[in-house]
């Protein structure tokens, strides 16, 4: 009975969010540093670029080669980070758990930078090493956070701070291995930059987001029970160790693929799941898929601000998400 009600609520919530997401993709595709004729652009998008809507060759390229791929990447990155955040929060029973704050994003960033410095020619090395970095950082934080008294929220955040600062130093160290002329672009990328949408990484990021979200949603019931505490969950038949590994690996895949494509976009995994929980409750069967859609929506809008507010120059999208996320973090910290 409850399952059926949940299923219906999930479908309604996700249906609404998915509709909003589609609208956002289309609407944000009409905005950019170059003005495109709105009606013709709309016609071109709706027909998936097949109809002749009177767009010039360059306008067509701007829309389909630059703007839409970037928006899709924003969606994938936002979806990944929000889903990862939602599942960390459930698994670790900590409202402040977030890929960026736990150092997982920095782990992935170190992996990506190592790939760039040592295996620059091989584009696939980036997501692979980013995943490895994210997973290592996750396991390190988890081990550090487990004290004799168990993992308290404060201890977890402290562990995250330690891992984050350690990895930041590692990033500084790797940048010194680069020549001066490349450092500026790396710094920009580190703050979260969606402008480098490549034909290899975009499909990887989208596929990871979909697979990861589905994978974590399938574990949502176990995560619900885990929110009662590991021992209670175990007594209720949850294979705690297996679920924990699944969440760590899948979340690392999600964070790794987004960081490899776009650097560290912070606070998405914090802001979005909390907004979702505030409006839809804390059942992970709803929270996780809704967070994925909401995260996509959030980063698409944030990136539209980043690429238009000082056009034709650009800001890193991470600056926008942090401007929104940090005050919310403070608010949540006061409530913990």
């Amino acid at each position: 009975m409850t399952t059926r009600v949940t299923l219906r609520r999930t479908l309604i919530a996700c249906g609404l969010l998915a509709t909003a997401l589609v609208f956002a993709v289309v609407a944000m595709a009409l905005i950019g540093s170059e003005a495109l004729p709105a009606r013709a652009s709309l016609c071109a998008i709706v027909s998936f670029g097949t109809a002749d809507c009177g767009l010039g060759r360059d306008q067509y390229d701007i829309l389909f080669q630059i703007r839409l791929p970037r928006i899709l990447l924003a969606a994938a990155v936002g979806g990944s980070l929000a889903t990862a955040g939602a599942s960390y929060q459930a698994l670790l029973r900590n409202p402040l758990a977030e890929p960026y704050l736990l150092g997982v994003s920095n782990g992935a960033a170190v992996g990506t930078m190592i790939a760039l410095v040592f295996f620059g020619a091989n584009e696939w090395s980036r997501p692979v090493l980013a995943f490895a970095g994210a997973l290592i950082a996750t396991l390190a934080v988890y081990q550090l956070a487990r004290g004799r008294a168990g993992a308290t929220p404060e201890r977890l955040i402290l562990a995250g701070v330690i891992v984050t600062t350690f990895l930041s130093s590692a990033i500084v160290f790797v940048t010194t291995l680069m020549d001066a002329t490349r450092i500026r672009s790396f710094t920009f990328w580190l703050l979260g930059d969606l402008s480098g949408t490549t034909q290899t990484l975009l499909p990887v990021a989208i596929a990871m987001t979909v697979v990861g979200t589905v994978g974590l949603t399938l574990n949502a019931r176990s995560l619900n029970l885990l929110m009662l505490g590991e021992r209670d969950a175990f007594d209720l038949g949850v294979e705690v160790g297996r679920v924990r590994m699944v969440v760590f690996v899948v979340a690392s895949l999600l964070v790794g693929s987004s960081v490899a494509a776009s650097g560290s976009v912070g606070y998405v995994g914090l802001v979005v799941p909390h907004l979702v929980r505030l409006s839809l409750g804390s059942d992970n069967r709803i929270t996780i898929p809704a967070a994925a859609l909401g995260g996509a929506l959030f980063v698409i809008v944030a990136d539209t601000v980043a690429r238009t507010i000082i056009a034709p120059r650009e800001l890193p999208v991470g600056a926008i998400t942090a401007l929104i996320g940090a005050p919310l973090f403070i608010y949540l910290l006061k409530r913990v």
Partner: protein
Amino acid sequence: MVLILLANALACTRPPKTQSESQGASLTQQLTDDAGRNVTLPARVERVITLAPNLTEIVFAIGAGDRVVGNTTYCDYPAEAKNIAKVGDTLHPSLERIIALRPQVVIVSTASQLEVFTQQLQSQNIAVFVTDPHDLEGVFKSIEQIGRMLGEEQQSQALVQKLRARTSAVEEAVQRVPPVRVFYQVSNEPLYTAGRDAFVTDLMRRAGAVSVTGDVPGAWPKFSNESALAARPDAIILPTGGSMGAANANVAEALRNSPAVQAGRVYKINDDHLARPGPRAVDGLEEMAHALHPEVFK
């Protein structure tokens, strides 16, 4: 380590200049630098540290390279400059190293972190001379200033005269043809370009080019891919092959179908000639002009 400590100790205990010394017109010289500061220096400067590659190149070009006792890890030209003691890079010089090398003057570009740095050196009786060339005129001014400082006025004036002649030759030649609309790609991912305040923007103008990003605020703005595409440049300049190494050798994705690429007008030019406001900037000017307007340089 002991040596550094010793040198430090020596520097600290060295007696301050006597009145007669600092007032004696024959023993000291007064110069005004680009930051508008009055700098007092010994009349004959024997020990110089240059804190940027363009400054090292200037000092060598006026024949005073043997007086450079320290420079930065970026200073790789001329070849002799590589063998001089390194004091760190332009942004992070080691004060201890500088003091240990006992220079009479440290020549800096505004890229260094000046305030604290200047104070610390001045407390060690080491003068700091600031240069800030924004354009080719500024480079000529820096060459003349440094020539005066090092007592190589004739050499520096001769050099500036030669560089001016080469510059005017280029400018006169390109005046006869319409300027080319150029996109200057600093890096392709993420896309960076040269803005209003970049040294190279002035250089492009003199080379018979109009930078399509010449009005964008800042020196090195992060640029929108779609605006780059919409700018439809007729030529693209890729600064690469110098300090950049193999980096930046490819045109950004957004410019793959630009008129520049379709016409095969993508030019790789040694980034050290374009990004360093020193004597070789005129090489960069000539290379750009020859690439963009081959017809007038037959």
